[in-house]
């Protein structure tokens, strides 16, 4: 059984309690980040979040607010935990029950709705290039041959489409 990382009885409470609360407040974001990292193989999201919080708590003395925000610091620790997990279990990931469950109609509808929201951010040519590449598995050269667009144009459309999706996440940040 794991010891709760935040409530270690031997620690002087007044000094560390605010920091602990800050870490706990970041837990939803931490879990969302880890869930987004899972691709193909489901991740033990709760275990990894717990591991990240434990590592953050152990190395709390190394945190320097002048070097960056606590959320970036915590996400880097979680990313390291995720990479360690991948390295330890490259072919045998633990299974998060919810992620392993067969997607039902509601999940499929939610996925479609999500994708349509993403695609609405793009213009028609960017959307076409992105779908042909990432959904249909076509290469850039194949898309160019299909559409008659130069290879450089297809690449540029793909880059613009991805950049828009990337900027969406940055835009959501507070």
């Amino acid at each position, binding site marked *: 059984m794991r010891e709760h990382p935040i409530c270690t009885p031997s620690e002087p409470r007044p000094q560390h309690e605010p920091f602990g609360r800050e870490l706990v407040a970041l837990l939803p974001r931490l879990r969302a980040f880890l869930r987004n990292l*899972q691709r193909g193989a489901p991740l033990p999201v709760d275990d990894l979040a717990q591991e990240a919080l434990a590592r953050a708590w152990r190395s709390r003395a190394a945190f320097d607010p002048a070097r960056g925000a606590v959320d970036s*610091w915590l996400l880097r620790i979680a990313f390291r935990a995720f*990479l360690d997990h991948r390295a330890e279990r490259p072919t045998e990931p633990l299974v998060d029950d919810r992620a392993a469950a067969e997607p039902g109609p509601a999940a499929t509808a939610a996925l*479609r709705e999500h994708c349509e929201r993403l695609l609405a951010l793009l213009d028609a040519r960017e959307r076409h290039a992105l779908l042909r590449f990432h959904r249909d598995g076509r290469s850039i050269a194949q898309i160019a041959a299909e559409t008659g667009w130069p290879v450089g144009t297809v690449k540029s459309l793909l880059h613009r489409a991805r950049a828009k999706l990337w900027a969406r*996440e940055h835009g959501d940040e507070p």
Partner: protein
Amino acid sequence: MMRELPPFLQDLLDRGVDPLADAAARDWLLAHPECLPAFATLRADLAALGEMAPTAAVPTRVRRLRRSVPLGAFALALVALGLCAQWRTSAADRDAPSPLPRPDFAAPALVRAVRTSTSVAGTHGAFASVSSVGRATLLRREEFTTAAAPTRAVPWCVASVVREEVTQ
């Protein structure tokens, strides 16, 4: 601070390489933790696109075209089948006498009961028959075996009246 998606990550994705499998990309991400949420979200979004059914977000015009292609192919197949059947029938009429005796047709007003049958390709077949006696109608399906498989001279499909009764 807003940071753009770096070109080397774009290049990895263009080559179909998972950035997490690339040591330089992992190091860059660790050095820029503020980009980690955007990276994870982009990775999840691209994976979601890969899981999306092809028809989910295809523009309406393309969907309409996709729907019409199988329908067109089916219609063409039907036309080809009809032409083939007609050619075979006419070839059989031209080249050889009908293997089945052709009954003499009575005038419609004189027919009291009639049965039609349809044979199909191969040595095994079936036919549906309709018998009418007065106002009563009987639909029946029967199976049969032919003496030989159909040939060009003997068409694969024969529709004929095999029995009729004529009122006196």
